[in-house]
């Protein structure tokens, strides 16, 4: 289990920084083995910073608190625990976290097998064991065919997969993935998603940061929205989306000319609240008051306008992202 407690980060001197100077303002999070946690946030929200802190590339910051007596007390940085063991520095981290960077940073003059053998060196395995382990890793990410080619000649997608394989060399308990499917074609994205799912099946803790929200919906079991340096909305995907579902019908007419007529018809119903026609005229959103759902439906059917489809509006991750003003 990955447990993050009260993690803060400022790029100023912590003793002098005010609360507004913190990029992360006390992150608390627990991710269980087998879970895929999607970390969502706008650019600059602090997603990569949080991952850097977990992987000990960056130090967490302490902060100053004012006691009820008016004293200024400097509190130590928060903690990161993996299976109950506190991670204090890179030495205590070794082998427990696999971090896949958004831009894979491997030694491109090496072949995939050579690079993995280099990373496997501290494990003290024999040459045969190392080769066997690394071949399996490359097979799992679908790179066996390119095992003896230099990484320099790989495509972006292949490098991304290579980065995943490299991060898994130590069989880490926690896998951090920063934009793992960015710049990949749909096929490549699908393959990466399958790899992520398999990692969760193996019982690893997976934390995923991406802007491809459709991927989050496909693969994550839980999400967290990083807003203004805090994780403000978190929970299983279904729960989060349901909480953002609005009381509205999405109506698509056979002909967009009739959109206004739909609005007029809905206005006559008791439960009518508001209506919005999409700019391109492709659909109409009719919002209803509590208990007004059936009235609206009856009014629209009674109008006799030819309708292509009518459905209750479901919030997508993208809707939530936009609604929550994730820039904080």
């Amino acid at each position, binding site marked *: 289990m990955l447990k993050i407690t009260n993690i803060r980060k400022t790029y100023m001197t912590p003793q002098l920084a005010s609360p507004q100077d913190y990029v992360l303002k006390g992150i608390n999070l627990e991710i269980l083995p087998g879970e895929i946690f999607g970390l969502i946030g706008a650019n600059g929200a602090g997603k990569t910073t949080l991952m850097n802190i977990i992987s000990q590339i960056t130090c967490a910051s302490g902060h100053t608190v004012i006691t009820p007596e008016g004293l200024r007390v400097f509190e130590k940085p928060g903690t990161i625990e993996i299976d109950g063991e506190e991670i204090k520095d890179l030495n205590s981290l*070794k082998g427990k976290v696999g971090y896949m*960077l958004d831009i894979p*940073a491997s030694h491109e003059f*090496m072949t995939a097998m050579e690079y993995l053998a280099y990373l496997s060196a*501290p*494990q003290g*395995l024999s040459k045969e064991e190392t080769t066997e*382990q690394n071949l399996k890793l490359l097979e*799992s990410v679908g790179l066996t065919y390119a095992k003896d080619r230099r990484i320099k000649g790989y495509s972006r997608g292949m490098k991304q997969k290579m980065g995943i394989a490299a991060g898994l060399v130590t069989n880490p308990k926690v896998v951090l993935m920063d934009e793992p499917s960015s710049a990949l074609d749909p096929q490549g994205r699908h393959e990466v998603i399958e790899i992520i799912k398999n990692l969760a099946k193996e019982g690893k803790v997976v934390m995923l940061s991406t802007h491809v929200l459709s991927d989050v919906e496909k693969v994550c079991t839980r999400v967290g929205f990083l807003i203004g340096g805090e994780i403000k909305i978190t929970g299983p995907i279904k729960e989060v989306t349901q909480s953002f579902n609005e009381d509205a019908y999405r109506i698509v007419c056979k002909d967009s000319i009739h959109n206004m007529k739909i609005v007029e018809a809905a206005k006559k119903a008791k439960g009518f609240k508001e209506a919005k026609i999409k700019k391109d005229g492709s659909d109409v959103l009719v919002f209803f008051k509590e208990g007004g759902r059936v009235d609206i439906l009856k009014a629209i059917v009674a109008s006799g306008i030819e309708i292509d489809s009518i459905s209750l509006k479901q919030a997508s991750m993208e809707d939530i992202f936009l609604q929550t003003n994730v820039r904080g």
Partner: protein
Amino acid sequence: MEATVIQTKTRNANSGFAACFKKEVMENLRTHKLLIFVGIGVGIVLFAFITLLMMWGINELVEDFDEFGQIMQMFDLNYMSSTMMFTSYMITYLTIVAVVLFRNLISKEIKDKKWILPMQAGINSRNIILARILVNLLTVLVAIAICCLLHFALTMAICKPLDVTKDGWDHLVGQFGAGEQIGTMFLSYLFMMLAIVFYCIITIALNAMTKKQWLAILIPLFILMVIETVFNMVHYRSGDFVNGVEITYALANWTPLLFSSQAVAMLPLSGQHYASVVIVQPTTAHWVVASNTLVLISAALIAGCVLLNRVKASK
């Protein structure tokens, strides 16, 4: 993906040096760094010989009664002239190339985040830095060694010894006699190597400790081009006219370029030529102090890079 990773064995905290060393050797060969050094080194050897031949040609036209004429006589087609030309050119030009190539040796690796995965895999950061420094220095040394071999072969083919009773082998590593140095050309090569490696270490150390490229370029080149010239001027003036200016003399000896040129000056095969232009010969004691100082400073700089260990979590 099924269970893909074999259970790992107990880790050794200091492991990974051999892997890092192998990786660095691979990098230097595959990114053609060794080839670049050898290529430029060979160019310098040829350049030195062309200059020597040019000087030798000019000698025919210059009268030897003035000071200029006497200095020009130093550049005859003999082993000493050839060695002196070669070592001074190598120290000047190869050092500049090495300083430029090594200016971001450590900082670029850190900036490109290439150390993250190895460190997370359990490779000690000190091993990463130490292997990187040692292999790159080794690359320079191998290139210099190849150039020395080429220079020796060309010198034997083109030049003549000052003492015709001694052959090429005697000049390279042979015993000249009681009280005289052995291996005169070989010693020159060694001093030259020491000087170039010293500049390389300063460059790498500055880059590793400050993570700044411009400092890593400016300071070694400043020492090479400005400080040495100043010391050189002061040294020769004081050597000629003021006896006992030992401090200037000692300082000058500790700067690598002059250190190396003095190495040639003290060699028996060069003695008769230098005697004619009145240059104060350094003593063996100067040499021991100077060479030990360079080695100690180099070792301290490498230790500083490894111990300061800038490859760690940023604040």
